[in-house]
């Protein structure tokens, strides 16, 4: 570059012009070369892509119908295009469906690129791949892929390069020729200008001028050069003039400075006057303390004139009581060489008045030596009085603080340190005073601010803002922590106030853990009651006593009515039930409220969303403290199902009763009516037997005997059946003397008793209420059984006893017969149940069933206790309370049992 700078302009111009021409032609050639190549390449690629597209469109049907032959045929047509090296049609899975390779080319396996939508891929060796995706409608069918050779591009590039080189060479030659010719015009004139510059530089003569000709840039340069020479000449002249003026100015300034010094001396005097006139007493003294200067304020403060005090010692003004103290203070200052002190003490004025002053003293020193003092004294009487008053009020506060029944603590706001605590605080928190005073409250961690913040997240913010704005906050509920770590609920108030000039926070803490506990207990009880209320299976509702609108509804109620609490609350009966029902409900409600009693509605229908239901409702008035009705509480049980069941049972039992009656009637009629024909048969058989007796042979006689016996048995059977059916029929309860009754029975059973030689014993039998005939039959049956089932060769003994109980009489008939095995105890009382064969112990199997029926009629029970082989005891009870009505029922049920 430096080398280029130093060569002559002539050569420069030639080089510039030639280079410019060369670069321009080079750029042009390059651009056209690049452009042609790109166009060629693009058109070649476009060509291939179109080819792929045509193949693709033609491959739709072969792909759809999987005709590989047809597809291959399409590809074979590519042999007309020499640039196509390979081609393939891939199906939608990417498998080769058809393939083609140019003669002499090897088979090429295409792979589908991931960026499947880009149609062209350039390969390194002047080859390209073109792909076309085949679609039928939106359905992807496969891909056509072509691989083509672009090598004919190289020949085109070479040819173009040659042409470009030739053009470049020719244009270089022309450019050189033109520049050689042009440089002569410019360079000669420039040389003239250069020689003029050289001359001025060497001689320093600015009045010389360069030759100026022509209107081009060189002409303008020569003119500008001449103008510049003229201006330099002018400037030189004016510089000389300015130097002269400067010298004159310096002389003037020196005179001004002298004047100013004189004014300064004057101002010093003025300052002294100002000191004399300020509101504070200012003085100077020598090192002993004698006044050397004092300002006029001394008269106002002390009553003495300036000249009265100059030369006196300042201690003469001090209150005699304080003199020693003050002297001691200042001796101290003197000894310690303290440069400045402030001290307050009282003085006595000329008129004898006592005034409090504050004195500020500054030592004047020269080297190590004290030469005097500067004093400033100000009247602080008023301030002192105020301070005294404040001290008094502080003492008053202190008394209140100490004796306060509420725990209190004082803390310094600035340091957060505890200043004082009162007795109550010591008792409440368990700290000793010395343990806590001087410590930071934050470290002591006595208030659980977290507890308040948890309960009310805005509280912390509220406390902060109120404390900042008003300086106090009252009654926040917090958890406080005792020394032993125990937490308790406290009502805390904070107040910020000035005590002894210190910004102090007074915190009072009031133990409310008792109240808090009570609140929590109440909450628990409420929760408990709520749980009971919500989960009890009965509907519970509460209405307000005035408008009878629903105030509360439990889950069971929601479920029963099919409405949700939201639907119900605030509404009344008319919003949910038909008018008649609502009238009924509200009517009852008013009745309950007016009477103020518990009211029971055993059955009431209600139309709910799910249909008609029956309720058993209890309504209760809830009153306020003035005994005015406040709410109406209702508790309803859904008795729909049990009512249905009850109705069914009622209906069934009526049906059953009817059936039983009919049955009984049938048994009665049947046995009654059977008796007559049977009797006739027996009679005439007997008659026939008598007439034939002795005339026929023994065999026939035996037959007659069998028939007679059978007839007899049947008669017995029918009679017993009649007894049984009668047992439940018409009866009449009258007082019955049991002893009389038994005597009658024994009399009537005379034959069998005599035959068995049985002993029947009874004493003190009561007079009871019952059906006389039926009771007689009962005893008859039981006694005849006792005789019938006697042991052979043993004389039967029968003991009959009676015992009076609260509600009934208990009878026992004890025998010494064969006894009964325990397994038959129950079976015994069932009709037609026999334990023995008829031949061994004749009988119908109806007797004990009849007994049971009679006992049941008398509201009693019958049972047996026995030991096999040792005898039996039959017990039965007869109720004392018998009414005609009640007695009807058991007859029917007893029959049911026997079925």
């Amino acid at each position, binding site marked *: 570059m430096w080398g280029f700078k130093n060569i002559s302009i002539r050569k420069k111009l030639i080089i510039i012009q030639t280079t410019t021409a060369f670069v321009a032609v080079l750029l042009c050639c390059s651009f056209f070369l690049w452009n042609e190549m790109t166009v060629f390449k693009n058109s070649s690629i476009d060509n291939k892509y179109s080819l792929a597209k045509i193949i693709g469109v033609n491959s739709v049907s072969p792909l*759809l*119908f999987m005709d590989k032959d*047809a597809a291959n045929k399409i590809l074979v047509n590519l042999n007309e295009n020499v640039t196509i090296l390979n081609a393939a049609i891939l199906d939608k899975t990417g498998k080769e469906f058809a393939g083609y390779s140019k003669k002499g080319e090897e088979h090429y396996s295409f792979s589908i690129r991931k960026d499947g939508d880009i149609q062209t891929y350039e390969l390194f060796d002047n080859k390209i791949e073109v792909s076309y995706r085949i679609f039928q409608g939106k359905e992807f069918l496969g891909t056509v892929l072509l691989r083509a050779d672009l090598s004919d591009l190289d020949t085109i590039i070479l040819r173009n390069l040659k042409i470009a080189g030739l053009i470049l060479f020719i244009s270089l030659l022309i450019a050189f020729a033109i520049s050689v010719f042009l440089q002569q015009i410019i360079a000669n004139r420039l040389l003239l200008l250069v020689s003029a510059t050289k001359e001025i530089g060497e001689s320093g003569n600015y009045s010389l001028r360069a030759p100026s000709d022509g209107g081009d840039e060189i002409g303008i340069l020569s003119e500008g050069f001449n103008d510049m020479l003229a201006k330099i000449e002018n400037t030189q002249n004016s510089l000389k003039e300015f130097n002269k003026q400067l010298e004159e100015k310096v002389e003037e300034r020196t005179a001004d400075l002298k004047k100013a010094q004189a004014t300064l001396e004057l101002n010093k005097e003025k300052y002294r006057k100002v000191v004399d006139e300020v509101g504070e007493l200012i003085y100077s003294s020598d090192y002993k303390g004698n006044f050397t200067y004092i300002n006029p304020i001394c008269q106002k403060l002390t009553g003495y004139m300036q000249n009265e005090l100059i030369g006196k010692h300042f201690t003469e003004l001090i209150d005699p009581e304080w003199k020693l103290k003050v002297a001691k203070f200042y001796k101290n200052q003197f000894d310690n060489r303290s440069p400045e002190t402030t001290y307050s003490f009282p003085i006595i004025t000329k008129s004898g008045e006592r005034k409090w002053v504050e004195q500020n003293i500054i030592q004047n020193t020269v080297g190590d030596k004290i030469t005097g003092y500067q004093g400033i004294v100000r009247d602080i009487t008023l301030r002192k009085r105020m301070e005294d008053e404040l001290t008094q009020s502080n003492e008053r506060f202190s008394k209140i603080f100490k004796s306060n029944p509420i725990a209190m603590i004082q803390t310094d706001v600035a340091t957060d340190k505890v200043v004082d605590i009162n007795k109550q605080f010591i008792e409440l928190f368990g700290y000793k005073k010395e343990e806590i005073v001087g410590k930071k409250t934050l470290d002591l961690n006595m208030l659980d601010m977290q507890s308040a913040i948890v309960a009310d997240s805005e509280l912390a913010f509220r406390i902060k803002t109120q404390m900042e704005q008003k300086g106090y906050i009252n009654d926040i509920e917090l958890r406080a922590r005792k020394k032993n770590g125990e937490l308790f609920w406290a009502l805390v108030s904070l107040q910020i106030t000035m005590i002894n000039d210190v910004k102090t926070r007074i915190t009072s803490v009031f133990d409310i853990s008792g109240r808090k506990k009570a609140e929590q207990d109440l909450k628990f009880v409420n929760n408990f009651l709520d749980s009971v209320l919500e989960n009890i299976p009965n509907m519970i509702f509460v209405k307000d006593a005035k408008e009878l609108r629903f105030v509360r509804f439990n889950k069971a109620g929601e479920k029963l009515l099919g409405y949700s609490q939201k639907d119900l609350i605030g509404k009344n009966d008319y919003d949910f039930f038909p008018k008649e029902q609502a009238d009924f409900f509200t009517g009852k409600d008013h009745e309950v409220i007016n009477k103020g009693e518990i009211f029971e509605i055993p059955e009431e229908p209600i139309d709910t969303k799910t249909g008609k239901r029956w309720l058993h409702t209890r309504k209760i008035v809830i009153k306020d403290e003035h005994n005015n009705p406040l709410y109406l509480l209702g508790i309803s049980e859904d008795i729909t199902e049990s009512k249905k069941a009850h109705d069914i049972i009622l209906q069934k039992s009526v049906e059953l009763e009817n059936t039983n009656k009919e049955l009984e009637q049938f048994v009665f009629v049947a046995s009654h009516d059977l008796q007559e024909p049977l009797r006739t048969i027996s009679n005439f058989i007997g008659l026939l037997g008598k007439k034939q007796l002795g005339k026929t042979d023994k065999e026939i006689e035996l037959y007659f005997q069998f028939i007679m016996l059978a007839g007899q048995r049947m008669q017995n059977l029918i009679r017993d059946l009649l007894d049984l059916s009668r047992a439940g029929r018409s009866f009449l309860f009258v007082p019955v003397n049991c002893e009389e009754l038994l005597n009658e029975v024994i009399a009537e059973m005379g034959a069998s008793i005599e035959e068995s030689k049985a002993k029947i014993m009874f004493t003190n039998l009561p007079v009871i209420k019952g059906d006389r005939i039926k009771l007689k039959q009962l005893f008859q049956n039981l006694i005849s059984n006792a005789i019938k089932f006697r042991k052979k060769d043993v004389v039967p003994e029968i003991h009959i006893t009676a015992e009076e109980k609260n509600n009934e009489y208990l009878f026992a008939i004890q025998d010494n017969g064969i006894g009964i095995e325990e397994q038959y105890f129950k079976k015994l009382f069932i009709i037609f149940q026999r334990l023995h064969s008829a031949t061994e112990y004749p009988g119908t199997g109806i007797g004990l069933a009849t007994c049971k029926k009679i006992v049941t009629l008398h509201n009693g029970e019958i049972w047996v206790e026995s030991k096999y082989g040792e005898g039996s005891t039959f017990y039965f009870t007869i109720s004392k309370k018998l009414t005609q009505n009640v007695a009807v029922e058991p007859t029917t049920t007893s029959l049911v049992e026997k079925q």
Partner: protein
Amino acid sequence: MKKLVCIFFALLFTGSSLFSQSREKEYALKAAFIYNFTLFIEWNSNNTGNEFVIGVFGSSPIYEPLMEIARTKTVHGKKIIIREYNSLDETGNCQILFISQKNSYSLSEILEKVNAKGTLIISEQDGYAALGADINFVIINNKIKFEIYSKSINKSDFTMSSQLLKLALIVN
């Protein structure tokens, strides 16, 4: 003995399942072909309804794959309906009628009944293309190919695309 019987049944079972598998494949292809035909054939008759009916005459395993296609695709924007016919009288207005091998009518009977309705008749019986079925499936070298009856190409009822014709075996 027991073992032998077991093997025998196993063979029977696998054999039949293999057989049915290849059959399934065949009919899935045939069904796909039938659908593909609709891409290359245009019906000129005025089918104003918005349904494209493909009838299957006689029971055929092609029914299931056709139903599968009908569920997901349309023809010329029309919903595909597959109907199975067992008697000639049922063959209503359908655009394509596939004649199963398993029907009990002769082609001439079917053509007589159906031909006039603008219905494309597709069969799967060797020789049917020469007898008048528009398209007939044949199996050549284990591949399904189709024949087109030369007269069908010039029918006025529908126009077949050259794309289709170039793949078909044209039968006179």
